[in-house]
């Protein structure tokens, strides 16, 4: 894949994601104020330069410092939960789809049950039952409950790959079960898995903020969700203290929007059929590349189709 094939949309998304990651990584180094230290009065207004550049929250803590640390927390939770969820979903989907038979039946039944029960319900029930909640337990809970749709999508694709000829060749050459999965099935799904992972990360960040706003957030760490929890609890929206709730709202929106934009632009790269027919063809002819695209796309039928059918819908759904 050459860089020239990437749409402007991809670059916009990549820059936004990079910005968010920078805020989470470098922000806490630049803003040296302790997010738990009281530096001002109740909802003190923003004033230039120093820890109060975005004002103070309901406990007189610096909003800018809470914001950068909160961004970091949200990113950590999203990354940990997203990776766990994708890994479990990938493993279950691969095994179920490639193995088939009763293993497939059992795993698919579990996945279908899991899909039918709203994820938030399970997460709420587990979090309420936990004696202590911190950053990582929250990430684990989200990761271990929100993987079902990944498993279903991966299963659909790997079961279509199972019937292809190169799998027979691999079997005849004596490759083992896991080796076939890793070297002959997984590469066909890789683009899809990357996109699913991005969706999982943004979903996990949203789940975290939803849980925190309901009062089930991590008790010892600031996250964007807990900032909003306190802002709403103390009526900052009503009193007009915009600096308490606009920054975390903006940051969350930016994170989720940039991740979804990244996913959808990658989707267009990986699924040529999603590109607008005429424009894409014209472009291909003009550049003199990708002339084989229509045939290849047709050949990749089952995988491509599944990817399209699953991803745009579940993108909106999974939250």
């Amino acid at each position: 894949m050459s860089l020239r094939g990437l749409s402007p949309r991809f670059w916009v998304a990549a820059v936004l994601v990079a910005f968010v990651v920078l805020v989470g990584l470098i922000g806490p180094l630049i803003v040296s104020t302790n997010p738990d230290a009281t530096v001002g009065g109740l909802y003190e207004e923003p004033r230039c330069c120093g820890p109060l550049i975005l004002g103070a929250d309901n406990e007189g803590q610096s909003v800018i410092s809470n914001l950068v640390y909160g961004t970091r927390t949200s990113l950590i939770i999203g990354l940990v939960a997203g990776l766990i969820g994708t890994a479990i979903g990938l493993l279950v989907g691969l095994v179920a789809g490639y193995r088939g038979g009763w293993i497939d039946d059992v795993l698919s039944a579990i996945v279908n049950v899991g899909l039918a029960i709203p994820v938030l319900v399970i997460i709420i029930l587990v979090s309420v039952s936990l004696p202590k909640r911190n950053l990582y337990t929250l990430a684990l809970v989200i990761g271990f409950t929100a993987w079902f749709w990944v498993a279903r999508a991966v299963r659909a694709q790997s079961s279509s790959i199972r019937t292809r000829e190169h799998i027979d060749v691999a079997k005849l050459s004596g490759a083992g079960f896991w080796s076939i999965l890793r070297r002959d099935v997984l590469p066909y799904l890789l683009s899809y898995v990357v996109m699913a992972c991005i969706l999982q990360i943004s979903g996990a960040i949203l789940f975290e903020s939803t849980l925190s706003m309901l009062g089930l957030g991590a008790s010892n760490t600031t996250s964007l969700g807990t900032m909003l929890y306190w802002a709403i609890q103390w009526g900052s929206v009503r009193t007009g203290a915009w600096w308490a709730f606009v920054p975390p709202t903006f940051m969350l929106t930016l994170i989720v929007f940039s991740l979804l934009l990244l996913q959808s632009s990658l989707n267009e790269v990986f699924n040529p059929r999603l590109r607008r027919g005429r424009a894409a063809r014209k472009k291909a002819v003009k550049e003199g590349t990708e002339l084989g695209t229509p045939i290849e796309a047709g050949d990749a039928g089952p995988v491509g189709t599944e990817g399209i059918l699953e991803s745009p819908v579940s993108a909106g759904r999974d939250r």
Partner: protein
Amino acid sequence: MALARYIGRKVAWTLVVFVVALLLNFLLPRLIPGNPVDTIVGQLAQGGGAGGEQLQQIHEQYMKEFGLDKPMWQQFFIYVGNVFQGDLGTSFAQYPASVNTLIAQALPWSIAIMLPAIIVGWIVGNLLGAVAAFKGGWLDRGAFIGSLFLSSVPPFALAIILLFLVAVKGGILPVGGAYSFGLTPEFSLAFFGDAITYWWLPFWSLVLVYIGGQAVGMRSMAIYELGSDYVNYNRGLGVKEGHTVRYIFRNAMLPQFTGLALSIAALITGGLITELVFSYPGLGSLLFAAIGQNDYPVISAITLLITIAVLIANLAADILTGFIDPRIRAVQSGER
């Protein structure tokens, strides 16, 4: 006949999932180390909300209600029996009040903002997505980026911004709650006229996000259909565009229809927080209060209710899809 078998299978499947949901609702609170009633009553005592004698009374009540002196499987059947009799238990925090009453007070408000949002959002979103995909050009670009943005804005973020701009800064609509102070809910024109001013903002913040999500999905479906063989064939034959569009629309519609049911879970999730932001007295606010007070029976009743709502929506969509799309029936009854 195939249709009946298809529906029967779907109903059976829904029942299986329902039993699993009941099990989860039953088991998870019992995973709290030690006796859940002791833990919860202990927390109540720490909070200082209730006196010693009252605590004793509460403790006995719950020991009896949960049947904690009995073995686990018997407890489960007691729980299931209660649920099927429509008895969701007694609230911890507002002690003598039954969970049923609390839910009955909250549920109509939630339905009032969520149901119209689902219906309006689904119709408008799909129309927008289909038109954008077909027309292309600036309309498509604008509608797509707009919808993508709306659908990826967390619902509560939109709610917070709308509340701040329209109600607090603009002063156009009331700031929070569901009806003016001093009124009591009743079926009268005066009350309705008052309540609807409070209803607009939560409704809009839900419906905008939902329109965005549906439009993005529909656009992808329609573009995918636009590139398919039958469309090219029709073009080659010189069939009128309007005629082809009907096929495209109907084909692209089907997945969206299943999506309607699945997206209901997401909408409910968003709706819960939206209610919180607007202090709308629905299930979301009730859940929030219950979590703050460790009011387990209320929490578990709400999660159960959400699950049931989602299950019923899924089942309804499955059955309706079976009626609409003969292929699904054929595949389902032919397979296994």
